[in-house]
């Protein structure tokens, strides 16, 4: 899932300065699961904006809506009737959701209420960790299903580096060394010989270094 965190309310307030009618929009998919931008978080954010405004002279009304997925047109269009009544939208979705709303509602400013963090998983209840950097050319087949791109601080493909100590990464004693995890996993699978292969430098043009990426399914294009 995409993992995000809410921006400080003071930042959101700054963005919506001057707007009298604000619509806070949540997304029912990734950010609901990581407790950043679902229906509940929309209610909390909207309440905080209204409560903050209680001592102010300004007239502020804050409406709330949560759609299934903000990054899809079909769902974004469900807001068609609500948006004309507002001066600004605060989107509690990942960056893709924010941009979908911005494209769908060209005449209304759309502001990000979240900081999109990473593609990750829930490590334990209330803790999420990064697991994929969307590098465009997955190498998990060679690394025992553990990603060295996202989970090794140096994104090295032939690890570990000299900083790996007692299974931990040198950047932080709480962070597992991805290459230790890879080693342990391949050992368990009886595939340690795979580490004898030297992995050549990665072609980063498949990643964001190649410019904005696009995926096409010709058979699906109408």
């Amino acid at each position, binding site marked *: 899932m995409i993992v995000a965190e809410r921006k400080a*309310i003071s930042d959101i307030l700054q963005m919506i300065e001057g707007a009298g009618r604000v619509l806070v929009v949540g997304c029912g998919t990734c950010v609901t699961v990581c407790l950043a931008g679902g229906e509940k978080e929309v209610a909390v954010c909207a309440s905080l904006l209204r409560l903050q405004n209680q001592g102010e002279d300004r007239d502020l009304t804050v409406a709330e809506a949560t759609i299934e997925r903000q990054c899809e047109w079909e769902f974004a269009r469900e807001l068609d009737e609500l948006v004309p009544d507002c001066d600004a939208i605060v989107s509690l979705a990942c960056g893709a959701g924010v941009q979908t709303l911005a494209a769908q509602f060209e005449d209304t400013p759309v502001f990000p209420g979240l900081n999109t963090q990473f593609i990750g998983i829930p490590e334990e209840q209330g803790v999420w960790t990064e697991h994929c950097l969307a590098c465009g050319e997955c190498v998990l087949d060679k690394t025992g299903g553990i990603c060295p791109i996202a989970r090794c601080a140096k994104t090295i493909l032939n690890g570990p580096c000299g900083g790996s100590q007692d299974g931990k990464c040198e950047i932080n004693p709480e962070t597992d060394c991805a290459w230790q995890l890879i080693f342990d996993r391949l050992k368990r699978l009886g595939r340690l010989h795979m580490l004898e292969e030297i992995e050549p430098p990665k072609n980063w043009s498949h990643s964001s270094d190649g410019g904005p990426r696009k995926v096409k399914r010709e058979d699906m294009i109408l």
Partner: protein
Amino acid sequence: MTTGELRTSVIAFCCENSALQAVEDARHFGMTMPECVQTIRVPCAGKVEEDHILKALESGAAGVVLFACHTENCQYLQGNVRAEKRLTRLRGLLDEIGYPADAVLYASAAPAEAARAARILRTFADDLASVDREEAIEQ
């Protein structure tokens, strides 16, 4: 009830397995209780979410108490632990917007502790009354 009327009130979300009985007994036995307390029965304090408490403040309540079971006494094991953590987080959120965080309180009481529940509510209501809420909010 209008917003103006509510501004002097305290809303107490009370766990039906513990504090609710205590608060009801305190009333029943005529213990000194602030008049402005409205109780809301909840199946467990851990069921009360941040938005429920914020909505209560938005509707004009001067303060909100989240009344749970004592430590390690929750029928659902962790409900009170979650409730307390949630309240701590909520206080941080209120701080973020410059709203007095002491307008929300976490407390615990056993069903038989009517006197304790009454004392907690009295102290909380007195503390709230001692601060000019409107002024505190505006600052």
